[in-house]
């Protein structure tokens, strides 16, 4: 039985606890400051901001790992036998109680280094779609288009498929559908739609970011589908809405009709 006097308690245990608290608070503050600075600073880089922001989770991992090591070193100094015994106990603790926590940490490390998605990416994970706002040690937070803040445990990266709409780039593809009547002037409609896309203030065209217009005959309408790249994924919905609005106005001016419901036997010939 360990016999501690109150002086020894204050000298040993309390100072250790105080050190641990200081290290933890220091690591937390440092991680927060660096994250804040990097995220603010990244906006100066325009389309390269996602690459800068990706440094944040890596820095967090380094800071917290260093803090944990420092704390452990303050508390115990282990020889080989103690290290083996400690590892066994540690493994058992992970196996029984801390399984999910460590799965999340491993998931966080995988996200930080394998980069299946980055801060700022638009991702679909499970039933959730949104912009990655934060990649933490234990979970990833995304903001949905409806401004909901969703926290997803990092271990899900191992168990679920994740779709990233922009894969680390600021530009991303948007798909815009417009429907016209079967009797409408299809060629004119395609020209207008194409010009609405290339004159949009949100669209970006380069060797990698091309645009296409596709048509498909459907039962009651002809679907025109544009695929183009929005210059900044944050403008995804605004880009789609702007192109749709301008196209619709031009269609109205040119007399290109919207689809109407046809009863069997009334279907006109496509122009």
């Amino acid at each position: 039985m360990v016999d501690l006097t109150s002086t020894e308690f204050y000298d040993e245990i309390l100072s250790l606890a105080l050190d641990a608290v200081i290290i933890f608070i220091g690591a937390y503050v440092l991680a927060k400051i660096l994250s804040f600075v990097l995220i603010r600073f990244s906006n100066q880089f325009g389309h390269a901001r996602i690459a800068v922001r990706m440094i944040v989770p890596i820095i967090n991992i380094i800071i917290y790992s260093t803090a944990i090591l420092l704390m452990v070193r303050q508390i115990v100094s282990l020889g080989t036998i103690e290290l083996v015994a400690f590892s066994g106990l540690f493994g058992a603790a992970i196996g029984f109680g801390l399984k999910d926590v460590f799965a999340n940490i491993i998931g966080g490390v995988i996200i930080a280094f394998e980069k299946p998605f980055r801060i700022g990416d638009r991702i679909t994970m499970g039933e959730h779609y949104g912009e990655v706002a934060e990649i933490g040690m234990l979970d990833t937070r995304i903001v949905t288009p409806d401004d909901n803040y969703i926290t997803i445990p990092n271990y899900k990266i191992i168990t679920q498929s994740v779709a990233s709409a922009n894969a680390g780039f600021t530009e991303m593809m948007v798909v815009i559908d417009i429907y016209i009547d079967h009797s409408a002037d299809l060629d004119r409609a395609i020209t207008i739609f194409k010009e609405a896309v290339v004159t949009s203030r949100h669209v970006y065209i380069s060797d990698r970011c091309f645009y296409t217009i596709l048509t498909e005959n459907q039962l009651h309408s002809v679907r025109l589908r544009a695929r183009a790249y929005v210059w900044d994924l944050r403008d995804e919905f605004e880009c789609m809405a702007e192109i749709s609005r301008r196209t619709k106005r031009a269609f109205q001016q040119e007399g290109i009709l919207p689809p109407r419901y046809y009863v069997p036997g009334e279907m006109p010939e496509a122009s």
Partner: protein
Amino acid sequence: MTGDSADSSESMNGAPCTVFQNQFEEIQDVINLYHSHKRENVAVIGLPYSGKSTLISAVHETYKDNTYLVEYESQITSKRKLLDYRSSKPIFLMDGCQYLFSRHIGGFSVLDDFLNDVVTSSSLFITTWNLYAWNYIRRIREVERIFPRTIFIPPLSDTGMRQCILKDYTDAELQFIGGVEVELPSFIQIKQHEVTLPFKKEPLMVPFPRFNFDRLTFRRQKSEETLSDEEMVFRKITRLAAGNPGIGKAIWKKSFDYPTVNLKDYEPIRITDPLIRKDAFILGVIAMSGITSKEYLEEVSALEYDINPILYRLQTLGIIMERNGGYQICPEAILGVHDLLRRLRIIWE
């Protein structure tokens, strides 16, 4: 049609084109090849105020009998205006081809007609394009296939800049007689920058030092090369203008107060205020077109937003100016605008 005043301000009125000698010779080669039945249409491409009109005017002066010069200065919206270039001469020089399209729905029909004329004609077309307009139009019309020979206007050297600026003065009018005062900005300048803190709504003005490394290299070069005061002035102007003659002239006008040149008070326009997307987009359209009418900008906005507050804001920031009823980028702001539009990817590459 009259010339594009944005560029033609540097026109040398028939003087030999010595500042763009290499580009001039390249065009001469193309014309010689055309006479030996090999046709390669030319696109001369450059930033606003870079001197495209100077080059095309020089070509016209040299080949007056064989060339027909058309200069566009505003958006061409009907084919009737486009047809003005029809002539029996075998070589067409077309300055300001960025005016042949408008960036809105229905704004490409004139360009399409023109491109169709070019590919079906046996004439040689030597055209000039604003760099931004060229990059835009080549992405949506593949114009580089119709104009396979592209000639980019390079930045001017110190000598070229000197020649370009001093051509407006006679020898008797302006003399560099030593002791010309070239005041350069200090090595360290304290500038106030806005800093927004997360817990404070109002931005703080924090003083930041800014280092002017140009001053050090400039002084070193002066001592090493023993440049004359005149050479020093033009070297500095060339550097501040990044070799753009239009910007160089604007700097000269602002700095020259007879009989001294004071570069100390010259402040290049920096766009520190972040522009919102639609402001930047309209700025990009003005940069792409050259001189742009308000009606055209209203068509570009397509009822999506009001153009007046945007123009007011851009004018207040000193980025654009109104001249002859049209809007154009201030020459001193070109470099800042270029950086901004590239960063926001309003202009394509």
